């Protein structure tokens, strides 16, 4: 039935690539075309700020799928090309190479791009990069290699900034992280976690400074001076900016799709236009477990929405219903997170060792989320309680003499 049809995907990262594979698996017989302005064979993004930054290997070592697997699944890649415009009546895209591509089904996996804040002097700063693509990483590696000093300033103390700081330290840089808020990771974790990560970086000789609002960057002879509102300043040969993202919604907006903190989609990832779907970082979607619309920047969400959209397009009714999960690697710490902590009114800690513990976010008796440090068990136990909406015995939870198994921790 779909043999003569064409499904075009804008964006070939985790969402787009997994969508292509899933669509074929669901039985789509027509063409599948993935378009991305990034010229590289699609790659894993999470390692960019972690293993890949410190690795001598090329980006091919981190590819999502082998070249052969696209051939095997008859998935056509159009890389290094961007979409200039969409004609929703004709169902056609105009691409940056001048060609026109028609579609029967369009999937927007357009993702997001880093914010470059309007700081005075930021455009003339030397060796200043965001970190979102393989090219960004290459730029940072080259800049550090050729810089006259190894001083690096990271603007922004979120996960990207902190992971990048840890990786650059490993590469021999002297790193200072400047965070505007009073604590790092302020938007996403409890104060206990912020303190833990500040101390972790400090013990690895990375300077993490908070309440540092960068107001100007002055550049002279290849050296930047990063100036903060409190009058302090920091020298840097290389600057990495990690202050958040902007969702790529321009194309969606140009054809009048409903936007609301992203491209609004239903439980099958369909937009307000019946022939257009949106998946991954760019989608504003309903999460049944938390009973609200959310937008997520994560691999999990991209992959799970890809599968739901592929099933829906092939006429199978699968509804998006997953518990979000994330991870971060810094130095010898593996942080695994499950759930969404927003709205918590109590935080409990279960601590096995200094470098092995977990933070549990509750709203009254309901477990919302868990942050697990070097503690996969806590991550797994937390996942099970959240999924099953089971009530946890808080006294037993924080008592490490109680066996760490769901059955032992159930509130009777």
């Amino acid at each position: 039935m779909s043999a003569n049809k064409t499904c075009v995907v804008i964006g070939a990262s985790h969402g787009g690539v997994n969508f292509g594979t899933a669509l074929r698996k669901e039985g789509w017989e027509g063409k599948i075309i993935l378009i991305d302005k990034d010229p590289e064979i699609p790659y894993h993004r999470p390692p960019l700020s972690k293993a890949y930054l410190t690795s001598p290997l090329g980006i091919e070592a981190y590819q999502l799928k082998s070249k052969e697997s696209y051939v095997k699944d008859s998935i056509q890649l159009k890389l290094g090309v961007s979409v200039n415009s969409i004609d929703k009546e004709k169902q056609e895209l105009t691409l940056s190479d001048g060609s026109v591509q028609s579609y029967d089904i369009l999937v927007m996996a357009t993702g997001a791009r880093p914010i470059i804040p309007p700081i005075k002097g930021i455009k003339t700063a030397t060796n200043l990069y965001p970190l979102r693509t393989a090219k960004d990483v290459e730029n940072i590696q080259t800049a550090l290699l050729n810089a006259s000093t190894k001083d690096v300033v990271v603007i922004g103390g979120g996960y990207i900034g902190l992971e990048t700081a840890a990786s650059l330290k490993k590469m021999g840089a002297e790193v200072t992280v400047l965070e505007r808020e009073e604590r790092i990771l302020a938007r996403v974790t409890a104060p206990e976690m912020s303190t833990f990560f500040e101390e972790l970086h400090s013990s690895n000789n990375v300077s993490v400074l908070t309440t540092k609002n960068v107001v100007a960057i002055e550049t002279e002879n290849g050296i930047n001076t990063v100036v903060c509102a409190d009058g302090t300043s920091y020298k840097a040969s290389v600057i990495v900016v990690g202050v958040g993202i902007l969702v790529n919604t321009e194309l969606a907006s140009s054809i009048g799709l409903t936007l609301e903190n992203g491209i609004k989609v239903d439980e099958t990832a369909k937009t307000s236009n019946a022939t257009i779907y949106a998946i991954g970082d760019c989608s504003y979607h309903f999460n049944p477990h938390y009973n609200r619309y959310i937008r997520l920047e994560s691999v999990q969400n991209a992959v799970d929405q890809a599968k739901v959209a592929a099933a829906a397009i092939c006429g199978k009714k699968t509804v998006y219903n997953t518990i979000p999960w994330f991870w971060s690697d810094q130095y010898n710490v593996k942080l695994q997170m499950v759930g969404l902590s927003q709205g918590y009114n109590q935080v409990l800690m279960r601590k096995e060792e200094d470098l092995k513990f977990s933070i549990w976010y509750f709203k009254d008796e309901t477990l919302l989320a868990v942050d697990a440090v070097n503690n996969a068990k806590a991550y797994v136990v937390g996942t099970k309680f959240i999924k099953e909406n089971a009530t946890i015995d808080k006294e037993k939870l924080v008592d490490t003499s109680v066996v760490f198994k769901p059955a032992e921790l159930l509130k009777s």
Partner: protein
Amino acid sequence: MAKITFITSDNEKIELEATSGSVMQLAVDNGVQGIDGDCGGVCSCATCHVHVLPEHVSKTGTASEIEQDMLELDDNVSEYSRLCCQLDVSDALDGVVLQVAK
């Protein structure tokens, strides 16, 4: 060179040969049904679960602590369970048979 055999939940037998990389990457690159490897091989997602044939456990060794903990995410875990992102392809694996978990 190691020959690695996957048996999928549909009982499809897929024989592959490789010299390096992880067993998960080998499976993903060859479209082995049931092996997703969403996290890219850092033991964070448990989407590459296989059961090693009991007589082949000597080839693979046993799971590390974090791997064992992550395997608990899956109800279908056995004492022969592994996350195959944690298995590196080497001659030691030659001839191993892996049943993809359901």
